[in-house]
């Protein structure tokens, strides 16, 4: 059995707002990624997927607060560490994070090579400048990035190139886990493809051992990651392999997401696009029962009252719903 790179058990984090109303944006999330695997997290805006990304790093600063649960990276528990220790010992070497706007994080007055130096020196203050340069050049060449880019300023590079440069720099210390939060959403499709290709290469060459990829675009996740997890209102509602999730979604919400996919393929025009009515619940006062019950057309009274646990089925899949898998499959079968 492959080694577990990242294990998260019942992680709960909250935001404290100005008027002291707590928002539990990540609510008892558990997940596990093995070496060489990638996990995709999908969900609509405000479901807590970006907060989960921040929480996974163990680097908390106001208004985000750690509540409970544990984060274990390659056997090392980082939950509850103070932010300074996390910054020095975990970020960059154990775990790396790329936000959507990463490309805008580059100071336009500084050459790219200086950023590489900064990243390496933050962990090894005595590192020799020449060695660093050699290392950066080798890494850029390996990833198919032009080596000249190292001597450029950020403003001279295109958006897609900047994003790839940031990814290359943040993974130069070979972190075990890479968390990419919508790394390609602001880019054109062609640049997006290049970013994805680079992430794939990094996995193959072993620069990163495992990856978490967060996006709202399901077709992209389907093509990028091995497993997909769907989040709704701070909770995970379903998890399975990419294939199973796209062609056999069980949770009514996942099914709704899959049914709203639009790709330029034959059949798209004839498929009826269905919408999920309503809006997600207010996480300041989450509903007592199933969080999706308000918008679910299969919801019963039981769904509205009982909190739902995650239920395992079909080997390595799990879902969070009051109905049995068989019942849901039957209902879906009738609809088609």
């Amino acid at each position, binding site marked *: 059995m492959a080694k577990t790179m990242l294990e998260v058990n019942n992680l709960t984090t909250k935001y404290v707002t100005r008027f002291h109303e707590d928002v539990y944006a990540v609510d008892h999330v558990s997940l596990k990624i093995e070496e060489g695997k990638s996990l995709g997290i999908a969900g*609509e*805006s405000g479901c807590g997927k970006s907060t989960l990304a921040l929480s996974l790093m163990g680097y908390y600063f106001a208004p985000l607060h750690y509540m409970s649960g544990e984060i274990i990276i390659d056997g090392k528990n980082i939950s509850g560490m103070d932010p300074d220790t996390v910054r020095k010992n975990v970020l960059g070497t154990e775990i790396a994070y790329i936000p959507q706007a990463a490309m805008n994080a580059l100071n336009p007055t500084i050459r790219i090579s200086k950023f590489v130096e900064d990243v390496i020196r933050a962990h090894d203050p005595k590192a020799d400048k020449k060695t660093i340069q050699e290392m950066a050049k080798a890494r850029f060449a390996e990833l*198919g990035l032009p080596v000249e880019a190292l001597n450029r300023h950020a403003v001279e590079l295109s958006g897609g190139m900047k994003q790839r440069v940031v990814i290359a720099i943040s993974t130069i210390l070979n972190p075990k886990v890479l968390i990419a939060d919508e790394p390609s959403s602001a880019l*054109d*499709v*062609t640049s*997006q*493809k*290049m970013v*994805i*290709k680079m992430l*794939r290469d990094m996995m193959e060459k072993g620069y990163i051992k495992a990856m978490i990829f967060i996006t*709202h*675009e*399901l*077709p*992209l996740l*389907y*093509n*990028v990651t091995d497993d997909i997890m769907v989040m709704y209102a701070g909770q995970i509602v379903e998890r399975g392999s990419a294939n199973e999730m*796209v062609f056999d979604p069980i949770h009514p919400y996942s099914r*709704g*997401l899959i049914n*709203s*996919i*639009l*790709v*330029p*393929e*034959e*059949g*798209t*025009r004839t498929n009826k*696009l*269905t*919408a*999920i*009515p309503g*809006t997600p619940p207010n996480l300041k006062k989450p509903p007592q029962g199933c969080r999706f019950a308000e918008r679910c057309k299969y919801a019963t009274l039981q769904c509205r009252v009982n909190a739902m646990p995650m239920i395992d089925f079909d080997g390595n899949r799990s879902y969070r719903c009051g109905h049995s898998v068989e019942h849901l499959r039957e209902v879906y079968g009738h609809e088609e």
Partner: protein
Amino acid sequence: MKNEAFKDRPLCLSGKGVTKVFGYGNKANTAVDHVDFEFHEGELVSIVGESGSGKTTLSKMLLGLLSVTEGEIFFQGKPRDISNRKKKKEYWQGIQAIFQDPFSSFNVFNKIDTVLLDCINMRGGKHLPKEKKIEMMTEACSFVNLKFAELTNKYPFELSGGQMQRLMIARIFLLKPKILLADEPTSMIDACSRATILDMLLQLRDEIGMTIIFITHDIGLAYYISDSVYIMEHGKFVESGSADDVILNPKAAYTKRLISDVPKIHEPWDLSTVG
């Protein structure tokens, strides 16, 4: 190539050699470069392009918010005249828009009633009795599945993004223009509520026989919704025709690349063709 299905319908909006140049001298930047187009009545046309392709500039010119540097736009077969404010007002009776960002589309200091009343006034309903106006607003809101009674005295920012965009459609329902220009109306909305907005647009088109110009960067979405598709690259149309022709059998190299670079479900997404 033109979409054959619509060639017998009368022209609604067309353009010949429409060009927009920003700046002058060394800094001149051609955003839209001699484009020709023909949009027919009742047609749903998508203009697809990546960021920087000039699609938003073109849409602003179509709306009359930006002047045309060169070329001419024809409205219902006649050259468009928006030389003064009165003529502009007349033109805007015929063309209206829905923009990308619902949060910036509303004046946050105006109540929802004000927004809708404004539309009634614009259609010459200023002197209608109050009951009639409320009836019209209620009808418009129920068309987009909103309850007017719950919205009165509310401000737009109290609604969700999807509800705001639906309110924008209610506005169009009241204005009943000949042409609706929808500039990425669903790109800020979650995928699972997107279908509602798209369905309402289609329903509105059938109800009042409107031409819809749909501007988007999402080629899958354009394929799903439109009759005809125009592909735009660097200010030029590289390909146009019926949606099936353009998306399933692309001719231009740019279109082919665009389609192959979008991740798909049933067809493989070939990462080796990158760069």
